[in-house]
């Protein structure tokens, strides 16, 4: 019996099995958290255990409004970067002025939501995991439960709500910043005026282009919140555990965001 146990093929098969089960378990846990949060948001007010409006707003401030400067800087840079690359690329065809259309589509359909999602995953996803993990280690979660305060209602639901509202807003803001970056560089490089740039952008863009980005950002909001929160709740083993959960939640949510982006982009463009 011991020999069969130690066979390398069987060992690695076992490892695959274990990690698959763990993955499915985690996904299940995330969905439980999602449905429980939705329950509290929708049903809570009717059974006199509402999600506090004040904590939703304070979350919106810390994760949304406070993130505006950094979102602006990154999106602006992405806009400039796209303009540089596209002008270089289009010059081979002598079609530099088409840069406007290229930047408009790339920013609204792809880079706006993606860069905002990745940024917020690093900023808010990590702080969620760290905050809830620390509370878990300090028995604050237990304390909430024994006080009859459901931790999902108190901690997760307001965050989820705030995230679903704020990430699309930030994404739209990021779209604008990216377009501004593109406009400024194009103006300097090929001398296209801002008016003309704006005019061509508005002609090229349809509402559906912006909406595609916004829709993806709602998916990203779910991913960031659920991955951060579920990693926080499953912290064991003190401060080191909190560190691990924080790192893990950032890596996982960025990976999931990129993969989800690919999948949704494919289906939204069928």
């Amino acid at each position, binding site marked *: 019996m011991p020999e069969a146990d130690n066979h390398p093929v069987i060992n690695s098969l076992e490892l695959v099995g274990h990690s698959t089960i763990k993955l499915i378990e985690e996904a299940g846990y995330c969905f439980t958290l999602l449905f429980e949060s939705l329950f509290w948001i929708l049903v809570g007010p009717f059974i006199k*255990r509402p999600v506090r409006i004040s904590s939703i707003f304070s979350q919106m401030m810390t994760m949304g409004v406070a993130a505006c400067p950094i979102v602006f800087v990154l999106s602006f840079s992405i806009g400039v970067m796209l303009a540089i690359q596209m002008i270089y690329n289009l010059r081979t065809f002598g079609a530099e002025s088409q840069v406007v259309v290229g930047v408009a589509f790339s920013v609204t359909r792809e880079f706006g939501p993606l860069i905002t999602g990745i940024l917020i995953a690093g900023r808010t996803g990590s702080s969620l995991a760290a*905050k809830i993990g*620390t*509370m878990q280690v*300090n*028995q*604050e979660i*237990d*304390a*909430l*439960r*024994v*006080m*009859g*305060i459901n931790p999902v209602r108190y901690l997760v639901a307001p965050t989820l709500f705030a995230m679903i509202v704020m990430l699309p807003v930030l994404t739209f803001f990021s779209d604008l910043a990216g377009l501004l970056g593109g406009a400024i560089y194009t103006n300097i490089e090929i001398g296209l005026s801002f008016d003309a740039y704006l005019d061509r952008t508005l002609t090229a863009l349809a509402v559906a282009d912006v909406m595609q980005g916004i829709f993806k950002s709602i998916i990203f909001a779910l991913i960031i919140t659920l991955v951060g929160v579920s990693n926080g709740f499953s912290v064991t083993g003190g401060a080191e555990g909190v560190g691990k959960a924080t790192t893990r939640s950032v890596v996982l949510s960025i990976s999931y965001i990129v993969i989800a982006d690919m999948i949704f982009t494919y289906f939204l463009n069928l």
Partner: protein
Amino acid sequence: MKNNKSAIEVNDLVTHYGPREILHGIDLSINEDEIMIIMGGSGSGKSTLLRYLLGLGTPSSGSINLLGKDITKISNNEMHQLRQNMGVAFQGGALLSSMTVGENVKLPLREHTNLDEKTMEIMARMKLEVVNLGGFEKMMPAELSGGMIKRAALARAIVMDPKLMFFDEPSAGLDPVVSAELDELILELRDAMKMTIVVVTHELESAFKIADRITVLDQGNILMTDTVENIKNSDNERIQSLLNRRPSNDEVQADEYLNRLTGI
């Protein structure tokens, strides 16, 4: 003097941590207005027992009756009601670190009552006075010493005037003077508020001082539940080694020991 109506009744409680059985069929009855100490060494299962008494886990089998309700069977709503009659002082206090002491104490009131802000404030201050922390409501938990945090946590636990009060290692990490003060506080609380109090501890001195009865746990079994005198006079070897701080000398099973070492 004491009535014998039981506030907490545990029957044949069996719990597992993963595949390992931690509690092997615990029977325990705690009377109203009683201070029951649950004692035992590390790994005896006393913290586990407390977790299940608080309804923080689902037992493998057995029943736990709190104030006449079996918490392994009741609905979420009933549990929610019951929790408003329970107060818990955790080992590390477990104050929410993002809020001031005053906000922490007010939290249960805010969540469970419709009192106006001013009333809640007054009630919170009253409870902070009870634990000798008057005037500290504006401080953050990180600014308090260990003993003060435990007392603030106690204020939060009693703010709803619970009928059941649980303490997890109240004297852990405190100097003898502060720890003695906390003991006094527990006694005062019982007398003033007619609470049933369960204290999990391994501090003998404080246990003997405040206990009405003591339950000794060992490796997931109850060795004895009795009054302080009877526990002290018990001739059970493991109880005596716990009381006299003697190292326990389990007999070494030679074959088993060898098997463990060689990993067979």
